[in-house]
C-alpha cells in the first residue's frame, strides 16, 4: 500500500475508496540481541477494508523485511496473528485499521507469552495446558467396537458446548488475563474454556478426570473473574462463563 498509495492518489476518490494514511508503530525486539524492545515507525496508507495484518505485510514488503510476524489464513480461522493492537489483544487479520479510529496504530507482541522476535510469541505453554486438560471426547467404548457408529446429540445438548468449540487457540484470552500476568503456573482461560467444552459435551465421559486436573493450586480457583478473556475473544467464546460453570461442578451446584 505504501507503493500503491501514489496510484491511488491519482484516482478520483469515491466513498468506497478513499486512501488515508496512519502511523504504524511496530515493536521490534530480538531477545538474543536486544535488551529491550523499541518501536519502528512507518507511514502506511490504507483503505476502508485494510487490516492491520495487511499494513504490517506492506511494511515487510516495502520498508523492512525483517519484521517478524506469524500469520496464515488471513480470515480469523488459524489463530496465528494475535498481537496487541493499540494496547488490546486482537487478531491482526480481523482488525480493520478504519475501525480503530486512530491515526496511530501501535502493534506489540501479546502479553503473557515469551517473545520469539518482534510480534511473534511462543505458544508452547498454551499448547501444553491445552493438551493437559485432555481436549478430546473420552469414552469407554469406541466406534470400532460399537454397533452404533454415531454418537447422536439433540440440538439442546449441542447448545451446551458449541460456542466453546469455536476456540481457535489464538491465545488472546491468555494474553488479556490478569492472573496470567502474575501467576506463570496458572492454567489459563483458554485451557479452562476447553475443559468446559468437553465436560459439557453429552458424549464425553471424562468429566471427573478433567475436574481433577483443573482442581489444583494454580488451576481454576486462581481466576479472579475479570472477564477480559471473554471481551477479547474474536470468535465469541466466553471463557469466563465456562470457568464459572466449571466452578459450579466443583462446588456441587451442577452435575
Amino acid at each position, binding site marked *: 500500500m505504501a507503493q500503491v498509495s501514489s496510484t491511488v492518489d491519482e484516482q478520483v476518490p469515491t466513498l468506497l475508496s478513499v486512501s488515508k494514511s496512519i502511523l504504524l508503530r511496530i515493536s521490534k525486539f530480538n531477545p538474543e540481541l536486544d535488551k529491550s524492545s523499541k518501536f519502528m515507525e512507518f507511514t502506511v496508507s490504507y483503505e476502508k477494508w485494510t487490516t492491520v495484518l495487511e499494513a504490517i505485510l506492506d511494511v515487510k514488503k516495502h520498508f523492512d523485511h525483517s519484521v517478524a510476524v506469524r500469520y496464515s489464513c488471513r480470515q480469523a480461522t488459524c489463530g496465528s496473528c494475535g498481537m496487541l493492537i493499540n494496547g488490546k489483544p486482537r487478531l491482526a487479520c480481523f482488525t480493520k485499521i478504519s475501525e480503530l479510529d486512530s491515526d496511530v496504530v501501535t502493534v506489540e507482541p501479546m502479553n503473557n507469552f515469551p517473545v520469539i522476535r518482534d510480534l511473534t510469541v511462543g505458544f508452547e505453554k498454551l499448547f501444553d495446558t491445552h493438551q493437559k486438560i485432555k481436549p478430546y471426547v473420552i469414552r469407554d467404548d469406541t466406534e470400532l467396537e460399537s454397533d452404533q457408529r454415531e454418537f447422536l446429540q439433540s440440538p439442546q445438548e449441542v447448545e451446551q458446548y458449541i460456542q466453546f468449540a469455536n476456540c481457535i487457540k489464538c491465545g488472546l484470552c491468555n494474553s488479556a488475563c490478569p*492472573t496470567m500476568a*502474575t*501467576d*506463570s*503456573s*496458572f492454567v489459563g482461560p483458554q485451557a479452562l474454556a476447553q475443559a468446559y467444552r468437553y465436560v459439557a459435551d453429552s458424549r464425553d465421559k471424562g468429566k471427573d478426570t478433567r475436574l481433577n486436573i483443573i*482442581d*489444583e*493450586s*494454580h*488451576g481454576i*480457583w*486462581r481466576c479472579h473473574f475479570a472477564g477480559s478473556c471473554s471481551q477479547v475473544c474474536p470468535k465469541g467464546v466466553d471463557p469466563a462463563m465456562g470457568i464459572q460453570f466449571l466452578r459450579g461442578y*466443583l*462446588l456441587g451446584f451442577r452435575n
Partner: protein
Amino acid sequence: MKESTIMKIHYGTALASVGLVAVHILMRLTTGFADSLEYENVLANYRSVPYVVMLELILILLSVHGFNGLRVILLELKQGRVYEKAVSYGCVVAMIGLIGYGSRTIIMTNMGMV
C-alpha cells in the same frame, strides 16, 4: 487437601463470619459503644460462655479465611515448589499461632488470671 475443598472452606468461613460478626456488632449496640469497651464489661463478655464461644468461632473463622486468602495472594505473586510449600505451611502455622494467641486471652480471663 483438594483446592476445591479449601475454597469451599474459604467461602463457608466468609459467609459464617459475616453472620457472626453481625451478631457481635448488634451485641455491642445493645450497650453504648463507650460502655462496651469498659474494662469490667469486656471481662463480663469474656466470662459469658455463649458469647465467648461466638468470639472464639469468629476468631477461628476469620483466621482460616484470612490466612487462606493470604496464601492465595502469595501463591499468585511468585511460583516455585519450595516457595509454595513454605507459603502453605507458613500460613497454617501463622493461623494456628493467631488462634492460639486469641484463645489465650479468653482462657486467661476465665481462669481468673486477669
